[in-house]
């Protein structure tokens, strides 16, 4: 089957900055894929290259088998992009905006039913005739998602779709996006909320400084962190003997990594010897954030 997205040795320079350093990436059709990484890792550059907003310095990118430069028309028909910024056209109302957007893709009146369906699915029906300027931030975010869907693209890219969105809306949005995935759409997202990626995505690429430093199923990545995490609230700093196990620290709140559960006895003994008392304690399964911190730190 043709991959939904294929990148081969993609480089992108912005003057002296080498923003993407030979990225290879294949995303299969129907995947729910997360692109993670700290700010400046190259996630948005990668998305903008796919969308044709940027041109690669070298390498090739394709969407559903269509080269984003040579077959740009087909590639753009196959791709729906939800941009990160809340951009909108202040001259028009929501329904007009969506109909124009569909029109740019060559769709006429026959597509209006679908436009209204998207409006309804995103809970925007009562705002269909409201000028875009007057929509709230959350509404604008939903409008952007609607805009990316009007031409029924098989591949949908969401760049930080839940940034600045309240919990309830975030939940509604994910339900909707999960539904799109179930219906066969390939979903690619970037997010800062790692728990979202962990819950939703079957595969994850981790980027750092223009390179993909990890690419695996969420399950395998989680399994790559051995043992468990021990969260401690202490009365004083941990003794030197435990420093090697500290994953992160915030004042006297510590997260320790245990290779084996039996190490807990050693930790408690060391604390007792150092006269440090435990104020609170919690045993936690490692999450994607641990993988993230681990890999970013290691590379």
């Amino acid at each position: 089957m043709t991959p939904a997205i294929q990148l081969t040795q993609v480089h992108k320079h912005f003057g002296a900055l080498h923003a993407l350093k030979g990225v290879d990436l294949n995303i299969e059709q129907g995947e729910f894929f997360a692109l993670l990484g700290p700010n400046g890792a190259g996630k948005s550059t990668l998305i903008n290259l796919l969308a044709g907003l940027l041109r690669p310095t070298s390498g090739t990118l394709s969407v559903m088998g269509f080269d984003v430069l040579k077959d740009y028309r087909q590639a753009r028909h196959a791709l729906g992009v939800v941009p990160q910024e809340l951009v909108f056209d202040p001259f028009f109302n929501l329904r007009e905006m969506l109909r124009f957007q569909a029109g740019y893709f060559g769709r006429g009146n026959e597509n209006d039913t679908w436009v209204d369906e998207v409006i309804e699915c995103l809970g925007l029906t009562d705002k269909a005739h409201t000028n875009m300027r007057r929509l709230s931030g959350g509404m604008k975010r939903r409008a952007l998602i609607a805009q990316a869907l009007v031409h029924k693209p098989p591949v949908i890219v969401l760049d930080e779709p839940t940034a600045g969105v309240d919990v309830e809306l975030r939940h509604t949005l994910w339900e909707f996006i999960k539904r799109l995935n179930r219906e066969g759409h390939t979903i690619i997202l970037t997010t800062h909320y790692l728990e979202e990626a962990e819950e939703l995505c079957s595969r994850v690429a981790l980027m750092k400084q223009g390179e993909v430093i990890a690419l695996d199923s969420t399950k395998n990545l989680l399994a790559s962190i051995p043992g468990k995490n021990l969260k401690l609230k202490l009365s004083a700093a941990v003794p030197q003997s435990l420093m090697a196990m500290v994953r992160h620290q915030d004042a006297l709140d510590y997260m320790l990594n245990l290779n084996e559960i039996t190490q807990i006895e050693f930790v408690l003994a060391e604390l007792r010897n150092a006269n440090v008392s435990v104020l609170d304690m919690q045993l936690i399964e490692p999450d994607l954030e641990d993988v993230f911190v681990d890999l970013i730190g290691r590379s």
Partner: protein
Amino acid sequence: MNLISQRMRGPWTLFKKELLRFWRVGFQTVAAPVMTALLYLLIFSHVLGSRVEVYPGVPYTVFLIPGLIMMSVLQNAFANSSSSLIQSKVMGNIIFVLLTPLSYIEFFSAFLAASIIRGLCVGFSIYLVSMCFIDLPLNHPWIILAFAVFGSGMLGAFGIIAGLWAEKFDQMAAFQNFVIMPLSFLSGVFYSIHSLPPLWQTVSHFNPFFYMIDGFRYGFFGMSDISPWFSLSVVIASFITLSLVTIGMLRAGYKLRG
């Protein structure tokens, strides 16, 4: 709309959106320039009306109207494409068009056509309103139309160039005040270049606006400073040159696709 082939729907939609964009604020984009032109007419005809006769038998007020119409056509054609582009660049919504399968030629055509329509709308409105006061001869309507279409086309293309180049509103304002305004005011809207000293007559010949105004005026009076055919050639050549430059910039993705 479904009468239009699927391939043409994209550019047609962009054209329609660009039309609606100025039509929605018609008070500002059509009525306001008509008002400005009428004020010019009122003031200049009062001050100079009885003292100046540029062409024999043509009162100054009558002489003034075609120039004012053409100046407004040109300024508004420029304003349409340039302001639309700079606004959508600053607002960021230009991305909605860039994400679509529209080609650079289609993008160009839609913006250009909308600019021409805005220019013609403003010009025709000034013509209609001035007809209420003044009897204006119409010697060669086709020449009038040709100059209006190619002139507004040229300025529409120029507006796209300015819109692509400018990154902020003040850069656009500078373009308007330091390029478009001097070119249009020094083009012979208010006078015949024969009344200028020789040096300025020569300088005027390097101003494409001069040919547009002079040729446009010929269509009304059948009289002009220089041959209308030469003027039309200059205007068409300038239109083609600017269009090619614009298309080249769009093709390269200048300040649009990095």
